């Protein structure tokens, strides 16, 4: 939506459209497209990659089919709602007849315009990239949104949403960050009801009980399909890489969910055949890695690709840009509107282990359970520079994992490629260490 359809003066940038030079806009766009292409090709180069994955690549392609579909959809009067967080219920968006897309940005180049304008070099690069992309209109997907729903999880996103208002209508959601039972539940329920109202205003139609029930069903189907994919990651030689799994999970927040579910089911069939043929992802005897920490939004797949190129295989993650998108179903007890909303509200809030919450002991408990279920041998904890919440939790988590004798490496990264070689060296050393440990423990078992 262009500025002119909105009321009131811009809050931050008076000469919004003139501030950035054409040259800069162009560069950001070109660089973003190039980066996405590079990352996509890198993913395609993975060995024994299931053919269905091409579909998920296409969903993510810069200016690809999904963008075209959304354009068409908007031409017929449809509304597209952008989100910035896993705590926004897509069921509700879809039930209102709108489409949801997560517009958090993984492109590196838009960080620069944001830096230039905001002048906060220490701010989280994901936040900067997201706002930067909007400022110079370099992300075709983000150009298609009619409303941005942004839960105010951290300081960065709080202000991001505020600035974003210069470019698109924004609805912020208050996250009760101190997570205690009843009061929190009621507060958050209020936010969800408010979201419902906003969505109804946007699309001009009431959210019907049946429609919501239907959407919840679709998303639960999607979760069940995802759950079956996870089973493959438990295998000694998983047939699918962690990068691909992240790509699939993130696709669910861009795609039509029924189509996504169908493709995941197709993939499942393909994986079954692969397993029979003995094909698997990663190198033989790869170190089983869990990815944790700050979100990694496609195409910012730097860390996961480094892990999987260095003799590791990501068998599990606890990222809000990965497994956590699909990790908790909505369980309905009763089916009146307010009960369904409550079920929905609680599903998106209580099991969420975002570090913005306190207490957040659930996070380490869930990590440990996944470590156990997926046979994880080491944890790569990644934080984006400026993400205090994850940075601070990392220390606590490292201590706890040490007690459980699970090695963890903490990596801090920026949105650029400058540190690739340095990070690679560290990851390689980490993977080597895991393999040595493994050999050692086998010897120990053998001798005892």
């Amino acid at each position, binding site marked *: 939506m262009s500025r002119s359809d909105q009321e009131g003066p811009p809050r931050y940038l008076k000469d919004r459209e003139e501030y950035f030079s054409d040259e800069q806009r162009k560069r950001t766009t070109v660089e973003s497209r190039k980066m996405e292409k590079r990352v996509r090709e890198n993913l395609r180069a993975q060995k024994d990659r299931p053919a269905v994955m091409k579909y998920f690549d296409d969903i993510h392609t810069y200016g690809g089919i999904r963008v075209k579909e959304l354009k068409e959809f908007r031409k017929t009067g449809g509304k597209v709602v952008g989100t910035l967080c896993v705590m926004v219920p897509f069921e509700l968006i879809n039930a209102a007849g709108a489409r949801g897309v997560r517009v958090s940005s993984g492109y590196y180049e838009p960080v620069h315009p944001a830096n230039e304008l905001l002048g906060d070099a220490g701010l989280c690069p994901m936040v900067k990239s997201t706002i930067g992309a909007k400022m110079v209109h370099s992300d075709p997907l983000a150009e298609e949104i009619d409303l941005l729903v942004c839960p105010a999880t951290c300081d960065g996103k709080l202000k991001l949403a505020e600035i974003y208002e210069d470019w698109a209508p924004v609805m912020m959601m208050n996250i009760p960050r101190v997570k205690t039972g*009843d009061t929190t539940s009621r507060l958050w329920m209020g936010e969800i009801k408010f979201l419902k109202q906003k969505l109804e205003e946007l699309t001009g139609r009431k959210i019907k009980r049946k429609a919501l029930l239907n959407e919840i*069903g679709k998303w639960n*189907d999607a979760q*069940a399909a995802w759950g079956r994919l996870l089973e493959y990651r438990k295998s000694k030689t998983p047939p699918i890489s962690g990068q691909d799994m992240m790509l699939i999970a993130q696709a669910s927040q861009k795609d039509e969910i029924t189509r996504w579910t169908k493709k995941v089911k197709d993939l499942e069939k393909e994986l079954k055949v692969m397993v029979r043929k003995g094909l698997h992802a990663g190198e033989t005897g790869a170190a089983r890695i869990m990815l944790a920490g700050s979100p990694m939004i496609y195409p910012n797949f730097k860390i996961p690709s480094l892990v999987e190129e260095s003799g590791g295989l990501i068998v599990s993650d606890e990222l809000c840009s990965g497994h956590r998108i699909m*990790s*908790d*179903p909505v369980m309905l*007890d009763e089916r009146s509107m307010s009960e369904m909303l409550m079920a929905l509200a609680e599903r998106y809030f209580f099991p969420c282990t975002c570090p913005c919450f306190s207490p957040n002991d659930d996070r380490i*408990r*869930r990590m440990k359970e996944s470590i156990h279920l997926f046979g994880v041998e080491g944890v790569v904890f990644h934080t984006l520079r400026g993400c205090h919440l994850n940075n601070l939790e990392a220390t606590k988590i490292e201590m706890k994992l040490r007690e459980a004798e699970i090695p963890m490496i903490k990596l801090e990264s920026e949105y650029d490629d400058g540190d690739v070689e340095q990070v690679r060296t560290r990851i390689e050393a980490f993977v080597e260490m895991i393999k040595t440990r493994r050999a050692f423990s086998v010897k120990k078992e053998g001798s005892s």
Partner: protein
Amino acid sequence: MDRFKGSIIRPWRLLFQFLGVAFLLGQSFGLPPFGTSPMLRTLFLPNASCRYVDTAPTSCFYYQFQDGMTSGASTYYVDVIVVLLIIVLMVLVLGRIWCSWLCPFGLVQEGLAYLRENLNIRPYRLKWAHRELLRPVKYVILFLTVLLSLPIGLSGLGLLGCQSTLALPFCQVCPAKGFFTVSEQLLGLEPWGTALPLLAIVSLLLFLVSSFFVKMAFCRICPMGAFMALFSRFSLMWLEKDVDKCTKCRICLRVCPVDHDRVYEDMESVDVAGSDCTLCGRCVEMCPEEGCLSLSFGPKRLASSKKPGRLGFLGMFHRKEGK
């Protein structure tokens, strides 16, 4: 159906509940073989076989309990003690399974909730603070019953004269008394115009209205439940929680008909049944984490929570997801 996880335990429970009601009504109305068998006559169960059914050859346990206290001093309360021991034994083995699998009060309340649900009316959810306030009320009622009944029976206190007015204090406000006296007159089993117990009728109305809006409203103050609650934490039947698997999603608390906080809050104990859980198994059905919650008997897990889409209880209702 799969997508919302259907009922796995509920159908079984309903079956038991209906059988239970049939049995207890049979017992109350003295239908053969119930009324004639001496064994069944002396079966005093909570909230069952209401004494205010004229033909009832027996009574509910709470009646026996109150009656025994008022009049049993001369026999050293042998009757009361035997009845109580039987109930305690039952609770020690089965926990409060009585409540959600057999109690007719429970069934009626669930029926009302079912009706409400189908009328698309949302339940009234008690606030946490109010739940906490309500929690001790049932014990207070139990205590008051004893406090009122015991002195009457002690001849030394000279209160024997009150037997006709103050005896059986709980019965006077029990919804069952209201229900049976009214319905017997309506059915012509009782002559018209016999004095109606107003108090009991008021509480019947309260019972109906409150449990229409609040799930299991009466259970929250039921003194028989309170008595069972005193011992249920030691029972062989229990609610098992594998805390490592719990994601703190709050589903168990949201679906629990008696708002048993502990199943959600407690992250230390293995047994989270405590005193208020009636072992209905709803949370077990709905918890989405594989093996996180179980209804267990001793060391054996009778039913455990499953990932949605992977149903199954006794292998009978097993359906594959997406079929």
